[in-house]
């Protein structure tokens, strides 16, 4: 018998020992970061960067496959007992000796996860991780001249690149309200002092917003530079327009931190049952279970009054309102809703 077959036999036996649980349920008690476990990480430190930004040092589980500079990672954090998933750029270099990674979060108003990470996260906490992903990365062949155009927390993926790869000629234009809001400011100035970076800080509270049309005044040769831009949608839209206008759009690489735009209203909306491919209009008061059944979708159901949890179904997109409490639930990976007590709060997509 091969060793693989032997291992699988042993595993089967172990499963019989632990039934109805799995061996991993017990192994998680002692070694949640082991190879073969669901990918997790442990927060080892939280370093403040500015008044509202902090860098979180994470030791990823053994299953972590490593990242490319500029990529982001989705993390699942328990905030007030509820697991929420968000994406953050990885700010650590790829060759960090201790195997840790860092993300840098900026607390945004009403941001549940960002505020939690910046102000409340404590070392020792386990978080959930996905493998790193994203194509906002540097090419294999090094460009001779580079421009990084960033604003606010848009600096985070670029910092990952700066720490990872040195170029001969790098210019960075970074926008932040005031000097003290510039994340990684000391480190950036250190790079400037070492002549590894030319930096222009635009302080929007005093200088006003960066006018892309006048970028040439700050970086005369911008059009010759391979550019990576990350920041709010307004900046990126303007940049894309500007680069296209000058016929150099292929030199511009952008990454958008997509704000989740959920239109939550009282009037219901268009409901898509994506597995069956049906789309119907729903008002804001009829349970989605009824809407689905009327549209001929085979819906799981139970008590029809919100107590038995027999009708829970993934919400893939949009928002729904709990008809009992008025609470709005927005779609996120892994979010299940009780269709018998939920109505459409704007357009939504139900996995049925």
């Amino acid at each position: 018998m091969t060793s693989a077959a032997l291992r699988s036999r042993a595993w089967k036996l172990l499963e019989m020992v632990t039934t109805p649980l799995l061996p991993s349920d017990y192994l998680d008690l002692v070694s949640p970061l082991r190879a073969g476990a669901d990918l997790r990480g442990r927060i080892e430190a939280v370093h403040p960067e500015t008044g509202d930004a902090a860098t979180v040092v994470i030791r990823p589980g053994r299953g972590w496959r490593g990242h490319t500079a500029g990529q982001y990672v989705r993390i699942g954090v328990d905030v007030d007992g509820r697991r929420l998933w968000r994406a953050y750029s990885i700010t650590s270099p790829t060759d960090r000796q201790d195997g840790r990674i860092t993300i840098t979060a900026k607390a945004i108003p009403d941001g549940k996860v960002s505020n939690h990470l910046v102000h409340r996260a404590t070392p020792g906490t386990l978080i959930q991780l996905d493998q790193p992903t994203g194509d906002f990365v540097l090419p294999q062949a090094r460009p001779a001249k580079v421009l990084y155009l960033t604003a606010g927390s848009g600096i985070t993926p670029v910092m990952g690149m700066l720490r990872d790869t040195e170029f001969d000629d790098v210019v960075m234009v970074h926008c932040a309200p005031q000097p003290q809001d510039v994340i990684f400011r000391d480190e950036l100035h250190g790079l400037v002092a070492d002549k590894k970076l030319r930096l222009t800080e635009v302080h929007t509270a005093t200088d006003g917003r960066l006018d892309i049309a006048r970028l040439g005044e700050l970086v005369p040769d911008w059009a010759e530079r391979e550019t990576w831009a990350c920041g709010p949608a307004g900046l990126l839209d303007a940049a894309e327009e500007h680069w296209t206008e000058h016929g150099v759009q292929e030199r511009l690489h952008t990454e958008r931190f997509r704000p989740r735009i959920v239109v939550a209203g009282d009037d219901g909306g268009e409901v898509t049952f994506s597995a069956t491919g049906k789309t119907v209009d729903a008002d804001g008061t009829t349970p989605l279970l009824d809407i689905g059944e009327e549209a001929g979708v085979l819906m799981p159901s139970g008590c029809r009054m919100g107590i038995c949890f027999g009708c829970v179904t993934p919400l893939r997109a949009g928002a729904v309102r709990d008809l009992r409490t008025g609470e709005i639930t927005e779609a996120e990976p892994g979010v299940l809703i009780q269709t018998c007590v939920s109505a459409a709060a704007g357009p939504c997509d139900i996995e049925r």
Partner: protein
Amino acid sequence: MTTIDPTAHLTAEQIEELGRELDVIRDEVIADRGEKDAAYIRRVISAQRKLELASRGVLLFSIFPPAWLLGTAGLSVAKIMDNMEIGHNVLHGQWDWMRDPKIHSTTWEWDHVSPADQWKHSHNELHHTYTNVIGKDNDLGYGIMRVDEDQKWHPLHLGQPLWNFVNACFFEYGIAAYDLELGKNLQKRHRRNPEFRARAKAVGRKIRKQVLKDYVIHPLLSGPSFLTTLAATFTANLVRNIWSHSVIMCGHFPEGVQVFERQSVNGETRGQWYLRQMMGSANISGSRAMHFMTGNLSHQIEHHLFPDLPSNRYAEVAVKVRALFEKYELEYVTGPLPKQVLSAWRKVFRLSLPNKKPKGKTPAREKELVAA
């Protein structure tokens, strides 16, 4: 059943107001659910797993009597925790709000021969929706017992104390049979129903796994302690079964608990639904340890009002609910475990015999109960 309706003094408006007041209690807990609650259930789950692991470990040496005693006691408690405070409550969706796929009603499986999804249907859906409605809620006597004077007596009922005792000893199998609606489905015309056969197969698979684990694998691992480990697991299952049967009997059987006619739920309002849960359930009083070991089903009344609130919150909710019982002059049936268990057993014995004095009853009700 008493012929006097204990809710007759309430007007329709009062009943609706009662419903609104209960909704407020529910909303308060929902708004306050958070980190502490999540930490609680994680702690309980972790403690249960460690206790089970440790007990199974000790049982490897169960050939020595002290090890047998310790391991058996530990395993019994672990199995009770798994079924009561964790399994029952997770499968009610009480912890779904955490969005942790490992502690979720759609993914949980428990140390029990009834597969979680079948139990969820018969328990969450049928029992909790139609609590104590004769003919709709099969938990009333589990379909094998006479639990109300108005149910027609049959000589077979003479044996019901015995059935009830056997059911207590092998409660998890009783539940599995009950979830399968075995009585009905073994009739010739139902037996070949493919849906029933699929469900019966699932139960068979689950039983095989459970039996293999408890009575083959673990005893074998114990080597020279084979027989003593086998006896220990059998004892732990017995203890767990009798314990959960007793707790569950206390929920709806003690004297003072009301049952309802089939028509009474037609067009039921939210307030009336709440009222039926209040009158159809009974609590067990006791220490925090008692509440924990019953999976907080000692707060059966609160659980039936709010089946999806986290179990660790029932104690605080109970204070408010009890105040409402007083305000609306309703009887809050509660008592210590021995008293409630005795009360329930006394009823089982009494109703195994025909009624002492035939009561005047309407023909319609008679027909209803016969049909049930």
